[in-house]
């Protein structure tokens, strides 16, 4: 059989292939030859064949059939074989395959070989790809070699030990004795790898860290070595551009960082050397800057004195002006890490940082942007915002979303005036409107609502923006909402801040209707505009036009739109008397949560998240403290009564609707145009509204009580704690009738003091059967965040023997456990 072709020849041949197919063919042919050669157990050519296989593997072809051959090569006595064998093992084998364990014995033998280069191969392979099992088996050998006087082996053993520790952390202890005099070596290779080993140990184990700090006095040793490196003259062997062994210097600085962190003594001991390195290192080349960079990182992380910290920040500042963009990048990254702790020092370099926004490199721009936002404060907001808005205009799309969010956040925190704030928002919406995050829309709406004096100006600007461009959805959504709310200000030309524009009601409606039909509008946007149009029915006089639009969309394909239109239609027809109240101007909203996930109120399908977020916070006191509320009596809509009303200016008629999606109600379309009716958001409103009492068993230990007992009507309360929220008590009322006639049209109403909130669920029925034949149950949930004594006033109305009966009572005898 002819000798297998040589490696170089194979490479040459394969490179002549002109197509992928041709190459594949050659490879397959050669693989077949190699396979048969392997089968023949040819010792002579095995090395050559495996080498060829490795080449083909690098080209991307499968080579797993060579794995065992690698093992055979490793076991061979020839150095050539071993060299290729170990290389093959590192390339083809990995710890997932059981095959690799077969290597263990070979490696063990080679670790004890008479030739150091063979030992070196074994150490290298183990340190590169040794699995945990292998490491466990061979750790002892490695430890032995760590103590040898042969520096060639010692340095390799140190890094091999690092790998062993990474794979099997429990073995760290066994290497401790061997580390005793590692740092007294002269050989730089050993020094470098020893520092790496010590770093690994200190990072992994706080005990080790303390040990090295206190017992071994590592810091002085390291300081000494570093000092020698800096002070000693030119050493040709380790010199890089005039600096002596920068690799070792950097590793020492990193270890010092770990030792000095949160430790005053260590930090003090290294203060001088750090200052020395920081001031004396040559900065003309990358090498010097690499050392300075590490020094800065160390200074910032340990307990350094303020002078040193300022020095470090100034180094970073100088880096920012460096021509080398790598250095600039590194500086920005470091400044970002330190901006929180050394804010003022970083502020001094603000203008340089802002200049970096104009850099061509994407990574640098991003860093500069993040850092700029971190540096914005009340003093520099105007200037910074100008730069950032300019950046927003011209930056890549990948930045726009983050930049826009950042601008909003900064504006919110530091806006010098409301007008400026609105202008900034407008600028962002018009320039980067499509990149703005979804939750910005409700935030902006809330902001606008709160700037009462700017309403006219805002709506005018938004309207003008809409005329220009309706493609950016967030802008369109905010604009429609505002026009819906403040359309009256728009047509009456009340703007003070700028020249009021002349616009008629029809023109406004044209624009809003245009949004509804435009292809550019998303379903959400359409929802906004329909609602806005509806709101204008109470602000504009052209009600008929609005009615027409609304009725058209009653048959829209979009279910959301259809539902809204149908409900609004109903508002026009059946509930017209409620329309003005419902569509009133929104009150000032308090922010409930910043940028947090919103609680979407289920409002019979209404999921206009913007509105749900603007429910006033729970903190708003219920102003109907001891009065009973006007409620929608029973009817077909399950009465869910809120005692905590927002501070709404006297609601005409004050009839509240059930806005909480008790979707099991079959009652007629309770119109729920949420925009106008704001409801407080006690947290428990969203779960499980049902007409069944939620809990059937009383809470352990809270005794039931009789709340009312008069004229044969007895009302008992039983108690339960609501599991998710301990501030909520769940009371179930049981109404029973001892008389001989039924009590019909029974309605139970309740009111609680200001600090409480009450929720009443639907009753089981409204007839209390005579002679205790049954009772009505109804669930009350009381939120008592301040754990005050519970008091309740109740009102009962029912019809008895044809005559209406009404009674008021106070319930004060709540057992303490029910409200504590």
């Amino acid at each position: 059989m002819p000798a297998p072709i040589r490696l170089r020849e194979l490479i040459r041949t394969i490179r002549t292939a002109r197509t992928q197919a041709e190459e594949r063919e050659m490879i397959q042919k050669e693989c077949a030859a190699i396979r048969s050669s392997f089968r023949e157990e040819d010792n002579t050519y095995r090395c050559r064949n495996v080498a060829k296989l490795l080449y083909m593997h690098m080209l991307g072809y499968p080579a797993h059939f060579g794995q065992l051959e690698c093992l055979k090569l490793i076991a061979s006595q020839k150095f050539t074989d071993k060299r290729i064998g170990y290389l093959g093992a590192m390339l083809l084998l990995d710890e997932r395959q059981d095959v690799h364990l077969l290597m263990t014995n070979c490696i063990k033998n080679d670790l004890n070989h008479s030739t150091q280069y063979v030992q070196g191969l074994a150490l290298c392979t183990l340190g590169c790809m040794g699995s945990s099992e292998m490491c466990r088996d061979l750790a002892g050998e490695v430890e032995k070699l760590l103590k040898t006087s042969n520096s060639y082996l010692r340095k390799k053993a140190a890094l091999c030990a690092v790998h062993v520790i990474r794979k099997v952390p429990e073995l760290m202890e066994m290497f401790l004795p061997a580390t005793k005099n590692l740092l007294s070596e002269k050989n730089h290779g050993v020094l470098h790898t020893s520092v790496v080993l010590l770093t690994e140990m200190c990072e992994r184990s706080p005990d080790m860290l303390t040990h090295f700090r206190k017992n071994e006095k590592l810091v002085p040793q390291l300081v000494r070595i570093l000092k020698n490196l800096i002070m000693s003259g030119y050493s040709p062997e380790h010199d890089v551009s005039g600096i002596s062994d920068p690799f070792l210097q950097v590793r020492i600085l990193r270890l010092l960082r770990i030792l000095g962190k949160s430790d005053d003594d260590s930090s003090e001991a290294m203060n001088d050397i750090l200052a020395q390195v920081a001031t004396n290192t040559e900065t003309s080349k990358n090498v010097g800057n690499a050392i300075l960079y590490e020094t800065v990182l160390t200074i910032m992380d340990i307990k350094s004195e303020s002078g040193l910290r300022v020095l470090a920040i100034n180094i970073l500042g100088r880096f920012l002006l460096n021509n080398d963009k790598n250095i600039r990048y590194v500086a920005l990254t470091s400044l970002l890490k330190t901006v929180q702790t050394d804010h003022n020092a970083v502020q001094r370099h603000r203008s340089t940082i802002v200049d970096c926004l104009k850099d061509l490199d994407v990574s640098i721009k991003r860093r500069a942007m993040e850092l700029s936002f971190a540096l914005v404060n009340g003093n520099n907001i105007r200037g910074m915002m100008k730069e950032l808005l300019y950046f927003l205009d011209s930056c890549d799309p990948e930045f726009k979303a983050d930049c826009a969010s950042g601008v909003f956040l900064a504006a919110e925190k530091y806006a010098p005036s409301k007008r400026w704030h609105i202008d900034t928002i407008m600028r962002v919406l018009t320039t980067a409107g499509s990149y703005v995050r979804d939750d910005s829309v409700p935030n902006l709406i809330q902001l606008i609502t709160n700037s009462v004096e700017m309403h006219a100006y805002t709506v005018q600007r938004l309207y003008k923006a809409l005329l220009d461009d309706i493609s950016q959805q967030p802008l369109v959504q905010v604009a429609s909402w505002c026009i819906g709310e403040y359309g009256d200000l728009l047509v009456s030309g009340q703007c003070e801040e700028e020249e009021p524009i002349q616009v008629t009601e029809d023109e406004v409606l044209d624009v809003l209707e245009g949004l509804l039909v435009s292809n550019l509008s998303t379903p959400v946007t359409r929802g906004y505009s329909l609602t806005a149009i509806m709101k204008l029915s109470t602000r504009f006089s052209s009600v008929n036009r609005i009615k027409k639009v609304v009725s058209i969309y009653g048959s829209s394909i979009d279910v959301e739109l259809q539902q809204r239109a149908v409900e609004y239609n109903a508002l026009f027809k059946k509930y017209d008397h409620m329309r003005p109240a419902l569509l009133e101007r929104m009150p000032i909203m308090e922010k409930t949560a910043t940028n947090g996930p919103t609680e979407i109120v289920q409002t019979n399908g209404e999921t206009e998240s913007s509105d749900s977020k603007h429910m006033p916070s729970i903190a708003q006191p219920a102003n109907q403290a001891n009065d009973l509320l006007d409620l929608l009596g029973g009817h077909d809509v399950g009465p869910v009564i809120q005692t905590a009303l927002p501070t709404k200016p006297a609601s005409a008629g004050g009839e509240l609707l059930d806005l909480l999606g008790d979707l099991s109600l079959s009652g007629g379309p309770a119109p729920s145009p949420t925009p106008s009716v704001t409801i407080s958001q006690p947290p428990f409103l969203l779960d499980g509204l049902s007409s069944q009492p939620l809990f059937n068993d009383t809470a352990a230990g809270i005794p039931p009580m009789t709340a009312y007992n008069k004229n044969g009507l007895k009302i008992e309360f039983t108690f339960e704690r609501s599991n998710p929220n301990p501030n909520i008590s769940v009371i179930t009322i049981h109404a029973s009738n001892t008389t001989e006639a039924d009590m019909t049209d029974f309605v139970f109403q309740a009111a609680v003091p200001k600090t409480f909130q009450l929720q009443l669920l639907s009753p089981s029925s409204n007839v209390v059967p005579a002679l205790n034949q049954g009772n009505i149950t109804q669930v009350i949930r009381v939120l008592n965040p301040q754990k005050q004594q519970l008091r309740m006033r109740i009102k009962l109305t029912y019809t008895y023997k044809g005559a209406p009966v009404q009674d008021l009572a106070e319930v004060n005898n709540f057992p303490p456990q029910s409200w504590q």
Partner: protein
Amino acid sequence: MQFMLLFSRQGKLRLQKWYVPLSDKEKKKITRELVQTVLARKPKMCSFLEWRDLKIVYKRYASLYFCCAIEDQDNELITLEIIHRYVELLDKYFGSVCELDIIFNFEKAYFILDEFLLGGEAQETSKKNVLKAIEQADLLQEVSHHEACIAPSGNAFLTQHSSFLIHEPTLNSHILITRNMCS
């Protein structure tokens, strides 16, 4: 360091050294994606980029990209120096190294790398010492190669393999250090 890749401007892999255990499939995927990302970078951009949760440091030397993936706490600037040191070693060894040298002598490139780095960290900071070790190992390879060729029957068997020894197999013949091992 987690891994180092060398690839050409056309995206062909010339060397791959992995210091973390990954399956072949994962390695291929990472290589493919990273090569694409780096090749898409414009010449004026900085040598660092964030990729997945790693920091990538890369530098182009002639037609070859040297690309390293380092961890968060590693120093990017010194990694550039490490890359440069490796190139210097290759250059000294091959004499004005070019991509072809690395293609045809890939196993040597690995040997040199393994004398410079171990487990992702530098084991020797002196250029001279790394080159000396390689030299000695090459010598050892020659000797063992030579010995193996002689040992069985001491005949012309060896002429088929060795490219340097002619027909007089004596242990005393001057052994030149050539670069054609396993050829």
